C-alpha cells in the first residue's frame, strides 16, 4: 500500500499513531513492510491457505463474534442436503461437470429451495460473461424463506459446513503451503482476533496483489468470511478496503468500461436470453425476491431514457432493442486473441497501454499488428502506438514495420489537470476536479473526443434509412459546449448521470424518485443524488476544521452520500451500539429513526423489531435486524449459494504455474479457470524443473503503471532509471547473479532482461521442507520514453479467474540466468528451447 | 553495507559492529570544488608575500639587485595569484562581487581585501623600479614597506582559508597550517633572492631560506604525526608523495643555500629547489584536505572520538 498508494497510506500511519497494530503479508519486503509492526513473508499465490488457516483458528477456538455472526450472517442457514464439499470430492464441490469444466450451482442452494427456483443460470455462461461482476453493488438472488438453526449445531448449517471445510487449514498446513512458520502465523491470528469484537475492529486492506489470480475472487471471499466471523463489517474501523489500480477505477466499474455491464451494475443483455425489456428486467429484479433490487425496472427505464431521450417511449420498450447484446466473452483477452485470428478490424485505446501493461505483451502486440486501424489517445507516444516500429517483435523479425498493416492514429489527450470531471475512489466517493490549465496544442479531453465523434457520426448517418443506424439517430446527444474548441460541459453530463424529471428537467434528489414510466431519466442510478438540488455535490470541499466527524460535505459518496455500507451492522440486533467505543449508526427509539454521524444504510424509520410478513418481496421483505440490505436474505454471506462460478466457499488451489503440488487437495489449480489453449499462449507446467522459480510483478512508487505518465518525465525517470529484477542473496549465489549486473528471466512466453538487485528484502521460503525462491519485477518498462527496458508483462501467460475474467499476473514460474538475453531471432530460439525441455 | 550481521558456517554469531558505519561508503562531505588554481594560488600568494618581505629587507639594507628582483617577483606572483583566484570561480565575471562586502568571518573576504591592498602597494613598488631614483625611489620604499607590512598576513591567511572548512584534515591542522604556510612563503621568497640576486647580496636570503624551511618542515611534521587518524591523508596517497617530495626539496634547497654561498649556480639551483618544495607543500596540503573529504571515516571516527 505504501508502494502503490502512498497518499492513502497516511491513514494507516495515522491509525498506527493511535495505537493500531499493522501487519503486512507479502511475498516481498516492501515500503509497506518497512512501516508495519509485523511483516509476514508468504509464497505468492498461497493466500487462501493463509486466510483459511485464520478461519480455522477462529472456528476451532470459537473466537467468532457469536452474537453478530448469528444475527447478521448466514451462519445459521441450513444448506441443502444435495451439497457436497471439497472434503468429500477431492477438492471439488458438488455440481462439477468435467466436460465444460464448470459448476452447476444448484446443489449449493439453501434447504427448502427447489432446484429450479435456484439455478437461474449455469456456470459456463456465467464464466463467459464474467457474471460475478454484476454482484458488485448487490448480492445474487436467492429465494425468500430459509431454514435456520440459531444454535449453529445443525450439521448442515453454514457454520458447521464452514468449520468442516476449513478444518484442514491447520497451522502446519499453512506452513507447508505458504512458508509461514506456525509461531509467526499464531501471532497474526492472535492479533487479528484479539483486536476484533464488541469493543474493537480490524480493517483488511488488499490490492491487485489479491485480485490478479486465477482464484482472485475467492481470495477476497476468504477475507470477507474472516471479517464477518469477527464482526468487522459495517462497523467503524472495520471493513475490507480494496486499493484500486488507477485513479477512478471504481468509477469505471460504476459507469463501466466493461463489456458485460451497463451503468449502475445493470447487466448487459445477452442475445437469446434477454430479448425483451421485461425479460431483461426480470432477470435483474427476480420477481418474488427480497431486497432493494426490486426497483430494477425504474433504474433500467430511466437509463434508457437518458440514452435515447424522446425516442424512448413505452410503446417501443424505451428503445431497449437498441442496446447491444452479448454473444459470449468480449473481454480484453478474448478480444486480443480474436485479433490474432484476424477477427477484429479496429481498436480504441484511451489511456491504456496494453503493449506494456497487459499480460502477455507479445500476444498483445502481435494482435494489434493484425488490426486494420488503431486509435491511441494518450499523453505521449506510448508503446501501443509504436510497437509496429520498435516493439520487441521487430527485433525478432515477427513484425516487419514495412509490412505491418495496422494504421495507427495517435491523438493527443488532455491530462487530468487539463480537464474537468469526477474521480470516484475506492470508498465510492466522487470528487469533482476543476480544470487547472488549458491542455496544450491539439490535446483534448475524452469528453470532447467522444462528444464530437458521436456528433460527427450522427451527422454522417443523418440521411441513412438503414435499420442498423436507428440507435445512432435516436441517441440523445445534446450537451452545451463552450470555449474555442466547443468543449462539452462536464457538469451537464453529471446532471444527466444524476437523473432529472423529463417534463421539467429538474434534477432528482436520489434514486428513490426514479420511475419506470419514462417520466425520469438517469444515467446511473447509484449516482443519483450527486446533483441533488441542482448543486454539484461532488464539488463540495468543506475542510476538516469545519466539517462533521466523518466529513459528509466533502465530495459525495454513492449511494445517497453514505460513507459506510451496511452501517446498520454497527448496532446490535436491537439497534443499540455494540459498544460506546464503536457507536456509529443506531436506533433512536424516541424519534423512531436510525441516527448517527453517517447516512444510515437502512430505511430510516424501519424499527429493529420490524418483521416482514412471509412472502413479502422487495425492500419491505428485509427485517429490522438484517443489515445487509442488498443481499436477498439481508445477511452477510459466509457461504455463497449462488453468484460464484468456482464454488460457494473458497478453496486453496495452486496458481496455474506453481513449483508446488497442492498439499490441500488432489485438485491442483482452479478447475473452472478460463483457459486459452493456443500455441501463442503456452503455460508452464506445474512443478517444472525447467521453470523452478516463482516470479511476481508489481509497481514502484516512482512509476505509474505502464510508464506512459512517468517514464516520459525526467523527474520521475531519474528516481527509478532502469528496469531491474530483485533476487535474494541465496538465489544470487545459486545462479551467479551479480548486484547491478544483468540477468534474464525466461518463461514459456518470452525472456526479458533486467539489471540485478540483490536484496535481503527477497528471501527464499521453506515450502514442504525445501527452499522455494521468489523473484520480483516491476512492470513499468517498455520501448518508449526517457528510460526504456524490457516489459515484465511479456513473461505472463493468459489464464483468467472465472468469475470476473481477470488475468493471473501476480504469480508465475520462470527461470533466471545471469547475463543479457539473446537478441533477434535467437530470443525466440531460447524460449523454444525452454519449451521443448519443459515438454510444451 | 550496514550492520553486517550474518552468521557463517552455521555458527550462531552476531558479527560485532564494524568500527564505523556509513551510507554505502559514500562521502558525507562534498569534496572541494576548487581545482588546482587554489593550491597554485596558495603558492603564488606565499611567493608574493615572501618576495615583498625580501624586497623590503633588501631595500632597507642596500641590496638593490635583490630588491629589484624581489619586487618584480612579487608583482609577477601577484598577477598569477589574481589569475588563479578568478579562474577558479564558477562565475569568473563576477569576481568583483568579492568586493561587495568585507566579512571578518570569511577568510576569503579578508584575504581578498588583503590581496587588494597588498596588490596596490606591491604593484607601485615594482613600478618604481623603472626609475629607482629620487622621489620615485622614496615612493617605492614607502609602497614596498607597506606591501611588506601586509605580506605576513597575506602569507598566513590562506592557512585560515583552508582550515576554516569542514574538510577534516584541514580543520584539524588549523594550529600548525599557518606556520607551515609562513615557512613555505619565507622559503619561496628566499628562493627569489637566491636565484636572482648576486651572491654577495645573498646572505639574508640564505638565512631566510633556512629559517623558512625549518619552520615549514617542523610544522608539516607536526601535521603529519600529531593529528592521529586525520594525519593519515597527509602521509598517504598523492598528498603523501607530494609532501615527502616537498621535504626532500626543501632540505636540499636549504642545504644548498648554505653550502653554495659562493656559487651562483648552486645558489640558483637551491632557489629552484625551494620554489619547487614550496609548491609541492601547497599541493600536498591541498590534496590531503581533499582526500579527507572523500572517505567518510575521516568525518565519523573523529566526531565519534
Amino acid at each position: 500500500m505504501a508502494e502503490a498508494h502512498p497518499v492513502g497510506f497516511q491513514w494507516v500511519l495515522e491509525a498506527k499513531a493511535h495505537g493500531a497494530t499493522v501487519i503486512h503479508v507479502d511475498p516481498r519486503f516492501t515500503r509497506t513492510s518497512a512501516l508495519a509492526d509485523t511483516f509476514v513473508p508468504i509464497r505468492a499465490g498461497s493466500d487462501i491457505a493463509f486466510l483459511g488457516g485464520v478461519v480455522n483458528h477462529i472456528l476451532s477456538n470459537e473466537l467468532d463474534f457469536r452474537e453478530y455472526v448469528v444475527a447478521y450472517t448466514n451462519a445459521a442457514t441450513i444448506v441443502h442436503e444435495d451439497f457436497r464439499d471439497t472434503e468429500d470430492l477431492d477438492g471439488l464441490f458438488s455440481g462439477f461437470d468435467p466436460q465444460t469444466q464448470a459448476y452447476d450451482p444448484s446443489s449449493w442452494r439453501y434447504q427448502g429451495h427447489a432446484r429450479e427456483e435456484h439455478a437461474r443460470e449455469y456456470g459456463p455462461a456465467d464464466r463467459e460473461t464474467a457474471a460475478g461482476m454484476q454482484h458488485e453493488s448487490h448480492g445474487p438472488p436467492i429465494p425468500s424463506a430459509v431454514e435456520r438453526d440459531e444454535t449453529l449445531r445443525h450439521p448442515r448449517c453454514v457454520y458447521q459446513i464452514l468449520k468442516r471445510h476449513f478444518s484442514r487449514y491447520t497451522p502446519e498446513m499453512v506452513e507447508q503451503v505458504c512458508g509461514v512458520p506456525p509461531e509467526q502465523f499464531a501471532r497474526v491470528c492472535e492479533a487479528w482476533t484479539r483486536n476484533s469484537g464488541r469493543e474493537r475492529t480490524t480493517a483488511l486492506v488488499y490490492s491487485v496483489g489479491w485480485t490478479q489470480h486465477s482464484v482472485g475472487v475467492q481470495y477476497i471471499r476468504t477475507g470477507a468470511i474472516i471479517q464477518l466471523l469477527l464482526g468487522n463489517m459495517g462497523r467503524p474501523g472495520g471493513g475490507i478496503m480494496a486499493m484500486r489500480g488507477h485513479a477512478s477505477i471504481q468509477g469505471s466499474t460504476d459507469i463501466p468500461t466493461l463489456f458485460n455491464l451497463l451503468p449502475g451494475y445493470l447487466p448487459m443483455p445477452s442475445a437469446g436470453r434477454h430479448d425483451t425489456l421485461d425479460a431483461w428486467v426480470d432477470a435483474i429484479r427476480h420477481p418474488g425476491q427480497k431486497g432493494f433490487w426490486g426497483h430494477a425496472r425504474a433504474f433500467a427505464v430511466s437509463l434508457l431514457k437518458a440514452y435515447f431521450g424522446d425516442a424512448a417511449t413505452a410503446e417501443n420498450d424505451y428503445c431497449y432493442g437498441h442496446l447491444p447484446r452479448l454473444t459470449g466473452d468480449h473481454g480484453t483477452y478474448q478480444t486480443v486473441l480474436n485479433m490474432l485470428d484476424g477477427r477484429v478490424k479496429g481498436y480504441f485505446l484511451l489511456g491504456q497501454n496494453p503493449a506494456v501493461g497487459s499480460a502477455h505483451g507479445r500476444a498483445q502486440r502481435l494482435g494489434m499488428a493484425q488490426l486494420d486501424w488503431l486509435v491511441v489517445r494518450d499523453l505521449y507516444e506510448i508503446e501501443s502506438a509504436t510497437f509496429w516500429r520498435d516493439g520487441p517483435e521487430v527485433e525478432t523479425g515477427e513484425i516487419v514495420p514495412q509490412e505491418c498493416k495496422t494504421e495507427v492514429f495517435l491523438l493527443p489527450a488532455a491530462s487530468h489537470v487539463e480537464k474537468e470531471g469526477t474521480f470516484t475512489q475506492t470508498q465510492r466517493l466522487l470528487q469533482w476536479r476543476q480544470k487547472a490549465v488549458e491542455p496544450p496544442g491539439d490535446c483534448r479531453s475524452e469528453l470532447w473526443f467522444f462528444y464530437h465523434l458521436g456528433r460527427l457520426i450522427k451527422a454522417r448517418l443523418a440521411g441513412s434509412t438503414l435499420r442498423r443506424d436507428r440507435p445512432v439517430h435516436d441517441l440523445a446527444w445534446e450537451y452545451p459546449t463552450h470555449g474555442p474548441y466547443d468543449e462539452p460541459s462536464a457538469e451537464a453530463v453529471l446532471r444527466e448521470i444524476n437523473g432529472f424529471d423529463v417534463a421539467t428537467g429538474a434534477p432528482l434528489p436520489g434514486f428513490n424518485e426514479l420511475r419506470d414510466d419514462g417520466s425520469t431519466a438517469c444515467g446511473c442510478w447509484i449516482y443519483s443524488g450527486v446533483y441533488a438540488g441542482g448543486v454539484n455535490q461532488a464539488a463540495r470541499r468543506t475542510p476538516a476544521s469545519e466539517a462533521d466527524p466523518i466529513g459528509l460535505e466533502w465530495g459525495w459518496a454513492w449511494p445517497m452520500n453514505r460513507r459506510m455500507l451496511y452501517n446498520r451492522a454497527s448496532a446490535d440486533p436491537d439497534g443499540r451500539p455494540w459498544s460506546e467505543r464503536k457507536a456509529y449508526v443506531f436506533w433512536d427509539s424516541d424519534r423512531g429513526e436510525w441516527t448517527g454521524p453517517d447516512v444510515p444504510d437502512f430505511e430510516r424509520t424501519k424499527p429493529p423489531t420490524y418483521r416482514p410478513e412471509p412472502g413479502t418481496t422487495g425492500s419491505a421483505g428485509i427485517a429490522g435486524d438484517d443489515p445487509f440490505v442488498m443481499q436477498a436474505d439481508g445477511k452477510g454471506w459466509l457461504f455463497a449459494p449462488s453468484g460464484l462460478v468456482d464454488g460457494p466457499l473458497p478453496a486453496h488451489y495452486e496458481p496455474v504455474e506453481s513449483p508446488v503440488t497442492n498439499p490441500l487437495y488432489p485438485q491442483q489449480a482452479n478447475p473452472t479457470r478460463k483457459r486459452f489453449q493456443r500455441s501463442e499462449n503456452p503455460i508452464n507446467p506445474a512443478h517444472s524443473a525447467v521453470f523452478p522459480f516463482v516470479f511476481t510483478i508489481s509497481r514502484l512508487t516512482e512509476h505509474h503503471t505502464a510508464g506512459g505518465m512517468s517514464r516520459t518525465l525526467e523527474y520521475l525517470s531519474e528516481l527509478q532509471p532502469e528496469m531491474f529484477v530483485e533476487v535474494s542473496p541465496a538465489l544470487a549465489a545459486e545462479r551467479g547473479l551479480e548486484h547491478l549486473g544483468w540477468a534474464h528471466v525466461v518463461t514459456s512466453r518470452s525472456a526479458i532482461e533486467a539489471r540485478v538487485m540483490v536484496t535481503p528484502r527477497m528471501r527464499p521460503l521453506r515450502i514442504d521442507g525445501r527452499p522455494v525462491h521468489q523473484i520480483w519485477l516491476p512492470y513499468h518498462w517498455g520501448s518508449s520514453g526517457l528510460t526504456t527496458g524490457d516489459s515484465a508483462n511479456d513473461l505472463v501467460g493468459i489464464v483468467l479467474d472465472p468469475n470476473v475474467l481477470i488475468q493471473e499476473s501476480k504469480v508465475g514460474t520462470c527461470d533466471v540466468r545471469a547475463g543479457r538475453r539473446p537478441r533477434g531471432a535467437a530470443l525466440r530460439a531460447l524460449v523454444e528451447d525452454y519449451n521443448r525441455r519443459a515438454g510444451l | 553495507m550496514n550492520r553486517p550481521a550474518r552468521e557463517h558456517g552455521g555458527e550462531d554469531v552476531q558479527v560485532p559492529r564494524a568500527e564505523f558505519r556509513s551510507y554505502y561508503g559514500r562521502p558525507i562531505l562534498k569534496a572541494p570544488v576548487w581545482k588546482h588554481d587554489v593550491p597554485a594560488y596558495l603558492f603564488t600568494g606565499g611567493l608574493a608575500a615572501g618576495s615583498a618581505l625580501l624586497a623590503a629587507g633588501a631595500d632597507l639594507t642596500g641590496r638593490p639587485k635583490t630588491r629589484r628582483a624581489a619586487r618584480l617577483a612579487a608583482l609577477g606572483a601577484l598577477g598569477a595569484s589574481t589569475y588563479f583566484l578568478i579562474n577558479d570561480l564558477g562565475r569568473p565575471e563576477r569576481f568583483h562581487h568579492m568586493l561587495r562586502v568585507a566579512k571578518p568571518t570569511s577568510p576569503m573576504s579578508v584575504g581578498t581585501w588583503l590581496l587588494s591592498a597588498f596588490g596596490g602597494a606591491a604593484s607601485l613598488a615594482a613600478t618604481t623600479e623603472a626609475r629607482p631614483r629620487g622621489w620615485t625611489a622614496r615612493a617605492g620604499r614607502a609602497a614596498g614597506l607597506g606591501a611588506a607590512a601586509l605580506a605576513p598576513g597575506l602569507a598566513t591567511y590562506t592557512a585560515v582559508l583552508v582550515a576554516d572548512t569542514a574538510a577534516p584534515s584541514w580543520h584539524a591542522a588549523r594550529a600548525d597550517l599557518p606556520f607551515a604556510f609562513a615557512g613555505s612563503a619565507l622559503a619561496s621568497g628566499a628562493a627569489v633572492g637566491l636565484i636572482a640576486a648576486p651572491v654577495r647580496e645573498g646572505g639574508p636570503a640564505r638565512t631566510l631560506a633556512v629559517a623558512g624551511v625549518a619552520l615549514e618542515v617542523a610544522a608539516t611534521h607536526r601535521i603529519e604525526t600529531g593529528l592521529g587518524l586525520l594525519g593519515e591523508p597527509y602521509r598517504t596517497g598523492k598528498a603523501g608523495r607530494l609532501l615527502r617530495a616537498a621535504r626532500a626539496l626543501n632540505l636540499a634547497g636549504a642545504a644548498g643555500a648554505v653550502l653554495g654561498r659562493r656559487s651562483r649556480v648552486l645558489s640558483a639551483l637551491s632557489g629552484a629547489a625551494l620554489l619547487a618544495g614550496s609548491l609541492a607543500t601547497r599541493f600536498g596540503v591541498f590534496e590531503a584536505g581533499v582526500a579527507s573529504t572523500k572517505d567518510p571515516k575521516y568525518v565519523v571516527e573523529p566526531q565519534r572520538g
Partner: protein
Amino acid sequence: MTLEQSPRRMGFFTDTSVCIGCKACEVACKEWNAVPADGLDLLGMSFDNTGQLDANSWRHVAFIEQTLPSSADPHDPHAPGDMRWLMMSDVCKHCTHAACLDVCPTGSLMRTEFDTVIVQADICNGCGYCVSACPYGVIARREGDGRVWKCTLCYDRIGDGLQPACATACPTESIQYGPLDELRERAQARLEQLDRPEARLYGHDPDDGVGGQGAFFLLLDEPEVYGLPPAPIASTRNLPQMWKRAGLAALTMAAAVAVSFLGRRP
C-alpha cells in the same frame, strides 16, 4: 499557517519513523524550484538513485536495508530473518551557526527573516568556499552554471504563508514544517510516544556544534548510517583561534625576516 507580524524561526522536523520513501518530497521540490534533473543512474543503493544532496537534489531520500539474524531459527538459512528498511528524507540543515554563510565572501548566502539560510543566485560568483565549509555536504556547485544551490526552505512560499513544497507533498507528515520551537517540542513528544531505544533526535540541540539545526531529524540509527556526520561543528566556531595562530605565524615571519637582515650590510 499565516505570516505573522514578526516571523519566528521556521524549520523542518523530519520524522524518519514515518517516512515511506515515496520521494514525493524530491519531486515536489524539483517542480517548485525548477531544479534540473540529475541524470539516469541506477545506483544499486536499495531504492536510492539520487545518491546525495546536491546542487540538483535539494531533498534526498536515503534507503538503508538492514538484516538482523533470524530470530526463528538461526541455523536455518531459509528462516525468515528480521530486517528493517530505514528511509529518511535529508535536506539542508539551515544551521544556527551556518559555516556556509559565515565563509561566503560575497554576501550571496544570507539569513532570512525566518532564520533560514538561502543563496542569492544573482550574487553568487561560484567561489565554492561554502561547499567546503558545510559540515553536512549539502551545498554544491552546479555543473555548467557555476553557482551554488541548495534548499531555500521554499523562501518564495513561506513568505506567502504556504508550506515548503516538500512538506506539502509529504503524505505521512514525515516532513513537518513550522516554528522551530514548536517543532522541537513536537519532536520530543514524538520521541517519548515512540518509546523505542534506537530512536533519537538529531540536530535539535541548540548547544551542539552548529548551534542547532533549523532542519532536524528523528532517526532510528546512528546518524552516519544515514550519511550524516555524528557530531558536526561549524568550522567558523574556531575562527578566532585560527586567526590567532595565523597572527602568530605572521609575526614569526616578520621576525625571521628581521633577523635575517639585521646587521648584515653587504
